[in-house]
């Protein structure tokens, strides 16, 4: 992830656009995500809003254990999102399978299919927990925005040199 132009991230991270994908959940988490948009929890006060297409989104909220049919769809949605992006899994069944174990039609949990950054547990998690999860996504993007330490850079350069000397392929 270090190859991105991190200056953009310093401007962007506090206004995240979120998209959701239901990969086979029972709706419980989805209605809590809708409640998060509602007036009491009001996620828009953090500058976040739900957008209709993954191509505009920074954060992907995935709910549900991934069914066989949704496997490819979820991958496609993930690849349609522009980098840098964060994946938040909402609900126990997306995190670990939970109550849906021993099924013939589930390919999940979600981290079998796409890389996950934040796990929000609960069946279904409260809206506060969803907000906490998404704000952790902000922290992750902010962390990406920091300039890498000079020490680390030096170490990386050394490692590259060593790899080249050893005849390995330098990327």
């Amino acid at each position: 992830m270090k190859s991105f132009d991190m200056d953009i991230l310093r401007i962007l991270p506090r206004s995240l656009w979120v998209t959701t994908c239901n990969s086979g959940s029972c709706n419980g988490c989805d209605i809590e995500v809708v409640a998060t948009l509602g007036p009491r929890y009001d996620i828009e006060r953090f500058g976040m809003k739900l957008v209709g297409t993954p191509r505009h989104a920074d954060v992907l909220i995935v709910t549900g254990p991934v069914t066989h049919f949704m496997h490819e769809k979820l991958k496609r949605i993930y690849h349609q999102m522009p980098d840098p992006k964060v994946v938040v899994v909402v609900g126990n069944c997306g995190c670990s399978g939970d109550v849906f174990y021993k099924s013939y039609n589930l390919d999940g949990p979600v981290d079998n299919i796409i890389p996950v950054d934040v796990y929000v547990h609960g069946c279904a998690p409260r809206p506060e927990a969803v907000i906490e999860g998404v704000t952790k996504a902000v922290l992750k993007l902010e962390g990406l925005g920091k300039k890498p330490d000079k020490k680390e850079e030096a170490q990386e350069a050394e490692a590259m040199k060593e790899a080249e000397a050893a005849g390995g392929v330098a990327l």
Partner: protein
Amino acid sequence: MSTTYTIPVGPVHVGLKEPITAWLELEGERIVNARVRPGAIHRGIEFMARERNPIQVIYLSERICGICSFSHVICFIRAVEDLAQMNVPVRGQYIRSLVLELERVHSHLLWSGVACYTIGFDSAFHLGMQMRERVMDVLELLSGNRVNYGVATFGGVRWDVTPELEKALRGMVRYYRQEFTPFREIVMEDPVAQARMRNVGVLTRDEAVRYSAVGPTARASGLRIDLRKSSPYEAYADFDVEPVVPQDYFGEAHGDVLDRFAVRVLEVYQSLDIIEKILDGLPEGPFVEEANLNKVMASLKKADGTGWGIIEAPRGDDTHIVSLKGGVDNVLWWKVRAPTYANAVSWPIMFRGNELADAPLIINSIDPCISCMERMLVTDEREYRSEVVTRSELVKRSRQKTFELGSLKSKYVPGGGAEQ
């Protein structure tokens, strides 16, 4: 000669909260035909239940659907109680009815909010969501959870109605009586909202009968059907529950989206009345027959046979059929027929003749719960075609399969079909 275009909608779509695919054939802006492909979130719940005992399946059945979770639980529990001949104390029955009505309130409020969101009436959506939080608070006070309550158990309920909760419930009923009427007036008397919903997605009375619509979808077409009236369960026999139909309100039933909106909104008032009656008539006594789950499990292990439960869920008739075998811990088989399965069949009828822009509203108008519905799927892999099948088609396919099996047997098994 006009050209038709096929527009795919879904499976993941901004207008839908759950994955389902629809192909709409368009002539200009008009929808001439529609096909629906369910099965995106089929999780195999009935299959999973076969490796679990009935008490574990309570919590699995709760997760068939997060919105009507309590309906599915009660339905499953009633099916098991039916086959095991278990009693439920009267107080337990009253508390079950209470939670069922609370669930109806929160489901209908959510739906009316989402319907407003679908037509772009965002302020009404926020108003609806704000009101919904009050009933969620009460449910949380009762059970500790906002979505999957875990209230019911075999032979009763797990949580009692405390004086504190009763106070909160009465406060909630007062709040809705005050606040809900403005919401109803804002939406139903708004000329723009009326123009978007009137004569859109029409399902006539005859079509509702022919395509076996259930629940609010059928009532909006003018059918006076309600299981709480025709086949009362739990505490409903003590109250007079009249089916809410739009002809009582508008003078005639159109069977369109506005009628479905009206039926759900008026049912909220009905539920508030029932909640008040339940609180007034709540009998004293135990709320569960046997709290020790080990004893319950021992008695269920002896149970043998098939039982059924059918209730009026917020979306229509929900049916569960369960079979247990004596001496075996696990559920032998379990069949769920969720209301959306019956209602989704009428989608193609509702679509016809409407504009593409109305499609999300029509999909939403039956209050679809896709995760409830996805129990069975018919797919034709060779033609890449799968549809909601009608009964006659199903019978035809069933007969064809028998025929094929018969011909296979005569071909490969010497002696024809004599062997078992």
